[in-house]
């Protein structure tokens, strides 16, 4: 049943297939997914949200029903019952849709890391795919709330340079943050990314602190040859 519903939703919404890994050595491509407990956490949120909405709407409906039975004329009562029935159907449909959305949101979430770059893709109705290179990374952050800790989950945030975003530089809404949500192996991924970053010691903005690159070394060697030739020329001019 769910497979059928999923295929219908995916074909209607034309969600693109699994993202391709960004350029990098094929052996280095690693695809991470959110932990199973992330799905459970989302379902828990859905259940509480739906229950709370049902209580509020149910209380409002009962209050209106009592008022309608006392004060509304017969045609007004039938109108109210029709509206209430439509409202109930819409509410149940939204609850079912929210449930399906939790499942799809969990399934359609990819975190791809290569030795040079990373790509994060998520979303159903609105899909979002972020790509950045390790050369642009400024900061790596692992964070977990109390409930996430209880479920063994954590979020990994990889930030590139630049400000903006409504919630400040560490906000998950910032456009410069690649957020790996709901990981059950966040520390492992962080270590992997840090290991990849070691080859990009000049990553982000700021002064590089490493030895000259091979290109710079070859230019330096050529410059030394020029210097030696210039000295030799001066010596030859001094003799003649």
């Amino acid at each position, binding site marked *: 049943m769910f497979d059928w519903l999923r295929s219908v939703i995916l074909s209607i919404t034309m969600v693109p297939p699994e993202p391709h890994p960004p350029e990098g050595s094929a052996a280095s491509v690693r695809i991470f997914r959110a932990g199973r407990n992330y799905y459970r956490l989302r379902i828990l949120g859905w259940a509480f949200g739906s229950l709370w909405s049902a209580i509020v709407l149910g209380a409002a409906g009962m209050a209106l029903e009592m008022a309608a039975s006392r004060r509304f004329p017969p045609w007004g009562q039938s109108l109210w019952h029709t509206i209430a029935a439509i409202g109930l159907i819409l509410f149940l449909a939204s609850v079912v849709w929210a449930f399906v959305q939790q499942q799809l949101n969990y399934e359609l979430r990819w975190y791809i890391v290569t030795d*040079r770059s990373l790509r994060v893709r998520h979303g159903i109705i609105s899909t979002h795919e972020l790509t950045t290179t390790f*050369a*642009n990374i400024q900061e790596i952050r692992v964070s977990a709330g109390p409930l996430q800790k209880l479920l063994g989950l954590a979020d990994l945030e990889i930030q590139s340079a630049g400000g903006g975003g409504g919630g400040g530089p560490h906000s998950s809404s910032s456009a410069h943050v690649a957020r790996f949500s709901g990981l059950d192996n966040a520390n492992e991924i962080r270590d992997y990314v840090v290991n990849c970053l070691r080859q990009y010691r000049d990553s982000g903005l700021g002064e590089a602190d490493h030895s000259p690159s091979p290109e710079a070394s070859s230019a330096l060697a050529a410059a030394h040859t020029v210097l030696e030739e210039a000295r030799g020329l001066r010596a*030859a001019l001094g003799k003649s």
Partner: protein
Amino acid sequence: MTPQPIHNQIPPEIAAITRPKDELMKWYFCKALATTFAFPITILLLYFRFHTMRYKFDTEGIHMGWGIIVRHEVMLNYSRIQDIHLHSNVFERWLGLARIEIQTAAGSSGSEMTLEGLPDPEGMRNFLYSRMRGAHDKHATPATDPLAGVLTEIASELRAIRQAVEQRGSQG
């Protein structure tokens, strides 16, 4: 004229892009409808935005321009790109569209450039990624380093002058 290295050349299908697809105007119409009462003003603004939007992709970066009353011209160097976002909502996907939002290290809250209505958004994203800093293998040494090449040539010239001077000295 010195031929450009292969990695600096722009694929012809990308160099040929100068205007957004016509489907973008359909998407703009949907966007304007969503503004309800402001529809007449929004559609007018989006209409002019669509008809004045121009793209140019050269070896240095992206040039984008739009607007009549207030003309915007933005140039963004490929090497300054920090993140590339590929966005699409369900309506855009129905129209075969997607937005590419490009972030640099500038501190603005929005994206520095949003490319809309491109024929192959994913292909364009991959092209931009290939031009980003750090997208290529850091350990792969280039076949020729231009600076080292010039310095080697200078050294050869100096050597030739020294030899000529030494020869003249021995003859004199």
